């Protein structure tokens, strides 16, 4: 059994395929969605989305967004997304600047969240080539 996965960013559609497992960086923790998952809507923190289709696994970097999961499909709306192996540091510079601005402009709970997101982005950027 497989489910339909769509990964879209505002500028283009990155992936649309059948997959067995999708790993998502949910804002309350990482989780994997498989066919028959309870309908869920979740926000995403910056991280890695893993789409496993047959023997192939593709990893995408996303900078926050949303996912809508039903028993047959997963739609991921990423604010910014790129295939992990093709992503470069330059591409994420603007994302990091935005996250930094959010840390500076917010307070309390929101600030803690923003700081966590910034940390995640820094972690992701570490493995990227220049």
């Amino acid at each position, binding site marked *: 059994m497989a489910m339909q996965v*769509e990964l*879209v*960013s*505002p*500028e*283009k*559609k990155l992936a649309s395929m059948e997959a067995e497992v999708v790993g998502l960086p*949910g*804002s*309350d923790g990482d989780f994997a969605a498989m066919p028959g998952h*309870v*309908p*869920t*809507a*979740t*926000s995403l923190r910056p991280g890695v989305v893993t789409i496993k289709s047959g023997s192939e696994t593709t990893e995408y970097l996303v900078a926050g967004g*949303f996912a*809508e999961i*039903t028993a047959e499909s997963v*739609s991921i*709306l990423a*604010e910014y997304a790129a295939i992990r192996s093709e992503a470069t540091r330059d591409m994420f510079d*603007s994302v990091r600047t935005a996250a930094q601005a959010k840390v500076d402009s917010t307070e309390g709970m929101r600030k803690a969240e923003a700081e966590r997101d910034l940390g995640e982005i820094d972690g992701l950027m570490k493995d990227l080539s220049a």
Partner: protein
Amino acid sequence: MPSLKDLKNRIESVKSTRKITKAMQMVAAAKLRRAQESAEAARPYAERMTGVLSNIAVSAKHNDDAPTLLKGTGSEERHLLVVCTSERGLCGGFNSSIVKLAKEHIAKLKSDGKKPTLLCVGKKGREQLKRDYEDLFIDPIIFEGVKRITYGEAEQVADVVLKSFDAEEYDVVTLFYAEFKSVISQVPTALQLVPASIPEVEGDAAAATQYEYEPDENALLADLLPKNVTTQIFRALLENAASEQGARMSAMDNATRNAGEMVDKLSIQYNRSRQAAITSELIEIISGAEAL
């Protein structure tokens, strides 16, 4: 009766105008293709976004503490009109038709005793609205020199809108842009951004899928709604970019054809006067010879 030299100059000048409009038409055609591609590439995201949002909104609408971006502030007094137009002219009725629609709205709001405010995105719309409504302006956003509209530009506009809404300056926000139907047809459109206009899901609310929310429903909506505003603005800007090039292309096509007709007409006139001049010269010579 213009002299032969005048006619010749006129023909040359119309010919060079025709060259320019022809070149502009071709440039617009090339740009149109790119603009159309990016407008189409952005469509899935906007569609999914509306889909997700309408699913969640169905259950949240009846919720009293739903975010104001969804259900509004409860009043409809202060309106913000975001008028998106182009940075350049020479694109037929493109800007005027958007401005006309916006003006109709302003007039209606005023006669209803509401308070409209204008946020102009793009230079041309601002120029056209300036004479009548300068007192309603807030700082315009001009994208001069921006070659390609990206999500960043949309965020810039959304930032202004959301900040002023958060500061409770407005109750309703409406976006004006031209939807791209085809090269010859661009439809000026008014889209209500706040409170969010969400298409009703088919079937009643009870039949809609019950979702698990993570984090909770309101936190998710509070996150999703501003993004929806940005997405809608982004889509409007892309549609506008495609419409602008489409309108320019057909305007320039018309201009090229008109210039061609003009050249034909002037050429005939030139040839006739030339012939008339030769004939009269001949008559003069012949009658001169006969007199001898």
